[in-house]
């Protein structure tokens, strides 16, 4: 008998979106408050895992048609390139740069290259977690 999990599916549609937004919030908050790329990445993958629980692997692949191994590799490359950028400014490897900018809507904001490095971490965490879960899930 096929069970009808309409409550789970409807709840997931709302909740996974909220988890995803929260993961982005945590990611950007990392410099001044607890958070950062690692927790952010884990939260984002937990949103995807919730989708996997409510629907099945094929549907989720249709929603997010990405290869998670590629995402991992992209994350590594973003992090390496951010760290090596300093070499071209005649500074030591891994030197970060920051400055204050006036952005529309946000006002005076400090932009730091550490965020780009964290973006790499975020992508690697999402990629690795989802690769693990999907590989085990698809295994017969």
């Amino acid at each position: 008998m096929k069970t009808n999990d309409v409550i789970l599916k409807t709840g997931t549609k709302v909740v996974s979106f909220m988890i995803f937004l929260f993961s982005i919030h945590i990611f950007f908050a990392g410099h001044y408050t607890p958070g950062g790329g690692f927790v952010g990445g884990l939260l984002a993958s937990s949103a995807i895992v919730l989708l996997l629980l409510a629907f099945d692997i094929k549907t989720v692949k249709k929603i997010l048609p990405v290869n998670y191994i590629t995402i991992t590799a992209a994350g590594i490359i973003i992090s390496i390139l951010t760290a090596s950028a300093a070499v071209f400014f005649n500074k030591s490897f891994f030197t970060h740069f920051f400055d204050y900018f006036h952005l529309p809507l946000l006002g005076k904001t400090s932009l730091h290259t550490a965020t780009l490095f964290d973006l790499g971490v975020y992508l690697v965490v999402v990629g690795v977690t989802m690769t693990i879960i999907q590989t085990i899930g698809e295994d017969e």
Partner: protein
Amino acid sequence: MNNLILFPVIAPFLFAAILMFIPKKVKLQRALTIVALTVTILGTIWLLVRVYHEGVLSMTLGDWQAPFGITMVSDLLSVLLVLTTTVVTLFVVLYSFPTIGVPREKFYYYSGVLFLLTGVNGSFTTGDLFNLFVFFEVLLMASYLLIVIGGEKVQLRESIKYILVNVISSAFFVIAVAYLYSITGTLNMADLAVRIPQIEYVGILTTVAVLFLVVFGLKGAIFPLYFWLPSSYSAPPTAILALFGALLTKVGVYAIMRTYTLFFTMDIGFTHELLAFLSIATILAGCIGALAYFDVKKIIIYNVIIAVGVILFGASQLNESGLQGALYYIFHDMIIKAALFFMIGLIAILFGTTDLRKMGGLMKTKPALGWFYLIAAFGLAGIPPLSGFAGKLLIVKGGFENDHVWGSIIILVTSLLVLLSVMRIFIYAFWGEPVKVNEIPRSTYRQMFIPSIVLVGLSILYGIGTEWLYPFVSDAANVLQNPSIYIDAVLKE
């Protein structure tokens, strides 16, 4: 800025990540791996020239002050180890083309090799104890992939043992680092070398030193802690075995050499005596194993353990001859072990078995292989014009100078056992009545044979050019013997 120091670490890392995008394009992967390794070798040679002319180079990541950031240090020892490692890896990759098989190549094999190289080069270059732990984990993670890749039954069984042992030793590593940090309040190696002599609690520092010996001994396979190595290393294919046998134990040996010369020198009478005793026991245990088996892979694997003992005995003497000998021997051993594993792999494929008793008469059909194997075997045992001689001579001399006469005599006697163990392979496989040999295509044979003879050629050059290499080795040993050179280079204002 000395960013060049990081080049041998970052270049393979970047290429490994790029290779993850194209797992199915085998030809492109092969080409990119060769490019990555060539570029790394060229960069390392440039670094070697700079270190040779300017002395120890150091840099701290992110332009922080020296003890507060992560320091990377390149002295002659580490840059020579990085160069040897990368060259050996290049030959392993060339040897993998015909042997490793397309399914493995499509499953991130070359990424794994390059990540392993990242970890090994990083461990040789770092100047921070916790960073050393991280690089150890990088190379171990990559080695977990390489030991299990392909998923044969024996690989699955051995990878469980291998991972279990290494997870436990990594946990011990973290505990040891935590103890040391709570005593000294720093993890920068040069800073540790400054602070440890000022601490009066020698007892607890000695305990931590022994704990580090246990940790690095598990990675580098010294006497009571080598139990996991023979069976684990015999599981993966020959190319991966050569990579592990030539490189991985040497990282543990290097870590012992670095910590036991740079900062754990507060109670030499206990710690270094223990190290000398354990290395002699390692040699004896290795010899017993090397003579006990009729399996070609096992014989050479036990020779890896013997070499670890020989190098550490030299390092434990803390005198000029002992340290120089240890350095001569470690480079020789990395090259010759890779060459021996290559030829063993070729012999095993030709006969279709690794059992010596089922082999024979290869000298009639493949004389070149026989002669090159013989040269490699003589080089391993340390017969004078070849590469193993200078290192062992200096190590033995160091032992005699330091009242470790018994140790030196054991090393001399066991050299004969080493020779016997490798000559057994020669006698069984190359002499006697010819046994039916598997047909392998000429091009495959050539692709497997050429990396082996080039490596044997390198080891011959190494043996003949001993005198020419002396300035490099004596400078490297000088830094080990006088930690103040290292400390000044890192903590300079």
